[in-house]
């Protein structure tokens, strides 16, 4: 019931707030418009309270450490949606999805806060709310049909966010984003359909229920398993995104409004990794083991290429976008290790990047907002003008390059240790890439915050008229919360970390070990 509320109520409220002003007479419509922003914030804060309640063991008596692999908390009794083809409303959460649900309910209100004064807020904030419901829906649904519906539904609000509030080149970016990710998810749908048709010999036997469909993976012939795994990989890797299907991301990020970028990087990218673990790895452990070298190659390519490209970027947002590609590469590397530590590190990477990257995009967005440029080097010495912004930027950049005591560090170290345990000295490549990461982050920071021709004034872009202001209170508050959480989870990663490492070792024990043995790989 709780998960149903989490997924459906934001969609319902958001859609209502979008549609009502169109239908109501103009006077009543204007009234709806004026309170729509507060309403959205209220609903998303309520959802955050609910998800925090569900996550906190001491509050809800739900012991996330005690649930085994393949069983779920907060599960509902399935309700038939399309009984004819075996679709039901079946939701539940486990240690893989719970951190993501909590993260979604955290990032959305913060992104609303950061863009509290967005233009056309009566459309902007409800769209963010619809987005929240769709993303939570992806994480909670235990029925692949519903999963896919939510998966596609996330595209529509994001498409409009980019198209209506984006930068100068927004049309191209929105179109590219939509067609790229839509095509990929159709390929994924074909994979899901093959799995569905394999669940039975007549229509009454077939079902989209996750449990049934995952079990059907083992009844396929080996060749078919590999094909379906590949189809799923294309869908999930595009969302993540991994090199070579990452090219939509920089365009979408650069053009998207700040809140859109925050949600895109913070949560939407995680859907790819989530789906990959939930469906592809769980249903086809054998194929995952066989294609481990491919995962390593993809992860390594994303990591190295993403970092390398970052060094050449002059646009702040584009640089941050490529750094996301680079960090997502670590997730594939973590999964490829087939170690509990590595997979837990990948899961924690999803979570940590989900807190850090919204902070990075909030900072970049504030730059655009207050300095009207994103070119690195065209504004310098901003520490003098915007001390708060400089502080947040420094914190975010440090967290992203993996400074100890910050959330990103935990994940990176876990993945690298596990990688070393499995692949030995090959670990040098990702480890050295982290140096490149440090280079581009430190350079961009030094050139924007500190470097100045005139120690008293700094160099400001000519487009900026008058006295530059520091960031507004709501931007400041949003960034401060994210920054605080980055440090909190860097020092005390235990809560989500324990849950994730438990889930990872269960995944290895129940699914992957048997697959490795049958494929003749030493576990």
């Amino acid at each position: 019931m709780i998960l149903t509320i989490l997924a459906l109520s934001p969609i319902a409220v958001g859609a209502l707030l979008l549609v009502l002003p169109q239908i109501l007479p103009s006077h009543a419509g204007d009234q709806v418009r004026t309170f729509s922003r507060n309403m959205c914030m209220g609903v998303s804060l309520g959802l955050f309270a609910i998800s925090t309640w569900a996550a906190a063991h001491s509050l809800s008596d739900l012991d996330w450490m005690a649930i085994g692999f393949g069983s779920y908390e907060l599960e509902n009794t399935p309700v038939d949606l399309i009984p004819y083809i075996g679709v039901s409303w079946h939701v539940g959460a486990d240690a893989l999805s719970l951190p993501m649900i909590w993260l979604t309910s955290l990032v959305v209100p913060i992104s609303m806060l950061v863009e509290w004064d967005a233009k056309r807020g009566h459309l902007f904030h409800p769209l963010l709310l619809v987005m929240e419901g769709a993303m939570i829906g992806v994480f909670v649904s235990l029925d692949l049909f519903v999963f896919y519906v939510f998966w596609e539904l996330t595209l529509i609000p994001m498409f409009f966010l980019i198209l209506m509030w984006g930068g100068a080149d927004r049309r191209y970016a929105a179109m590219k984003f939509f067609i790229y990710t839509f095509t990929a998810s159709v390929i994924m749908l074909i994979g899901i359909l093959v799995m569905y048709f394999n669940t039975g010999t007549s229509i009454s036997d077939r079902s989209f229920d996750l449990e049934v469909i995952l079990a059907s993976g083992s009844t396929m012939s080996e060749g078919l398993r590999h094909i379906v795994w590949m189809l799923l990989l294309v869908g999930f890797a595009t969302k993540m995104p991994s090199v070579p299907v990452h090219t939509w991301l920089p365009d979408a990020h650069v053009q998207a409004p700040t809140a859109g970028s925050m949600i895109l990087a913070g949560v939407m990218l995680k859907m790819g990794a989530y789906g990959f673990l939930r469906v592809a790895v769980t249903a086809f452990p054998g194929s995952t083991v066989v294609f481990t070298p491919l995962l390593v190659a993809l992860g390594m390519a994303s990591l190295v290429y993403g970092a390398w490209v970052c060094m050449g970027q002059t646009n702040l947002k584009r640089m941050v976008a490529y750094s996301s590609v680079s960090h997502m590469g670590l997730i594939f590397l973590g999964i490829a290790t087939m170690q509990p530590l590595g997979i837990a590190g990948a899961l924690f990477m999803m979570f940590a990047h989900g807190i850090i990257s919204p902070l990075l995009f909030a900072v970049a967005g504030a730059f655009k907002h207050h300095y009207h440029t994103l070119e690195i080097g065209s504004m310098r010495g901003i520490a003098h003008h915007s001390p708060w912004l400089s502080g947040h930027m420094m914190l975010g950049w440090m967290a992203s390059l993996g400074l100890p005591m910050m959330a990103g560090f935990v994940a990176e170290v876990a993945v690298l240790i596990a990688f070393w345990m499995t692949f030995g000295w090959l670990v040098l490549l990702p480890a050295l890439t982290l140096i490149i990461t440090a280079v581009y982050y430190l350079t961009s920071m030094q050139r924007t915050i500190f470097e100045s021709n005139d120690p008293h004034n700094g160099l400001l872009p000519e487009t900026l008229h008058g006295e530059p202001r520091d960031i507004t209170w709501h931007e400041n508050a949003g960034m401060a919360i994210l920054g605080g959480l980055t440090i909190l989870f860097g020092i005390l990663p235990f809560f989500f970390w324990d849950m994730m490492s438990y889930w990872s070792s269960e995944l290895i024990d129940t699914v992957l070990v048997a697959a490795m043995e049958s494929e003749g790989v030493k576990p």
Partner: protein
Amino acid sequence: MSSELAGMPTELLLPEIIMLVGLVALIIVPNLGDARFRIPLTSFRVPVLLGGSRFGIARDPRLPNWITIGTLLASLAAAQMGLLSPSDWSGEVGNALVVDEFSILLSNIFISVLFLCAIAATHRIPADPGAEAPTEDDDEESGARKTDALFDNRRQVDFHILLLTTGLGMSLMAKSTHLFMLFVCMELASLSSYVLVGFHKESVEGGEAGTKYFVVGSVASAIGIYGMSLLYLWNGDLSVSGLSDSWRSMDGLDPLATAGVGMMLVAFGFKVGAAPFHLAIPDAYSGASSIVAGMLATASKAMGFVALFKVMIIVSMPESGESFWFVAMAAISLITMTWGNLAALSSDNPKRVLAYSSVAHAGYMLAAVAAIGSGLAGPEAKALIVTAVLFHLSVLVVFKLGAFLVLSSLETEGGSHRMQGLNGLARRDPILAGSMFVFMLSLAGVPPFSGFLSKLLMINGIVTVSAGTGGASSIVSWATSVEPVFWLAVAVVLNSALSLFYYLRMGLVMFFEEPEGEGDLICNTPLRAFIIALSALSLAFGIGPGSEFLVDIAHGAAEALLP
């Protein structure tokens, strides 16, 4: 005559009787008060030697539309009653018509299509392209006179008479159990639709469309009638049950019977828009008004499938084993869907895109019919496939016709022939653009819209037929061991993926570029309400209790059709 009618449950034909009454009213009422009675569809005026000039109400250009909407609404209500309690509304009428769940569902499809067309036709058919529109300078009287000239009452009468005769023919055709009756009803509907296609005879496209559609259609019909005569020569009886019995007891393949059925396939293939008989269709759709094109893409296609079901599945299916038309049908379906999609990809005219998409959809349904012809289908799988096709035909009314209705709103400003007409529609008219987007997603088969469910049911049927084959472990040997009919399902999936691009292009173009016109589209309030309702229905029939309701009805209809 009356003695023959006595004892016959004529009340089962209530929807058709209502349409007949409406037709008579439509012929008589606009002549009231006139000294000369105009023969409909002609310029002949027969003097009746009574009265002078027409009454004001009889002259009103909106009158034919009102009568037609009222008639179709009453007729639809009668048909809906049958849908809700099929057992009370079933039975045989005479020895050529039967009312059962199948014909009730089809009647509902036909009548609701025509009802929506009538709603959309309100003030939509200009009589004379040269007539001037009233301007602000006109006073009330001269403005009204100009409007009347623009929407000539006589022309309106003709259009709406044709709508009603189409409905009458289609609705009776679904009920017929005799091939002769079936053909006569189908010709009634077809001849009316030929004229409807060419209704804008003053414009070049309209005339061309009407001529092409008429010539190709009448050749196809002639071939079909010749095939039917061969069947008569073979069996001496054209009732569906008699033919079916003879077919089953036939020793080997009789050349007369085979040739007859093959020729009828040509006629029905034209009706459903199957390649290679589809060549006139894009021209017809783009030349006709969007309303008529929508009618052709939904009701006329459903009519073709009714005929295909009766002749292919009921008559010419052997007791067991593959039917002789399986390979031909499979090939036709493959060519149809691929050709339709490829042509739609390269077309820049929204009406043509929808026309080709309608060809592609015919291909998907023919693939399902071909799966029945493979002879591998048990009774359950057969029912599933027919259910899927009937469900698809039903939901086509929702989203295909919906898309054409949106285009018909564009048409009044001349923007339905170019993709640019759709540019920036979202900014001008967010509600209609949103609905159009839903229709496009539904046509493309994106879950959770009804287009996905119908496609999945069809694929489900085809896969079920080939289930249990292809067990080998390596890909190559698996591919050779699987039944060939399985590849039809693969073709449907790949074609659907291909079709996404042109549907998305049409859907997304509405959100880009500067709009060409300004302000809301010209779209009357009822039509706007129905378009919104259709977009809600394309979701409601795709997921939840609505989908269950419609699938159950389609299933009941399939059970009633299959022996």
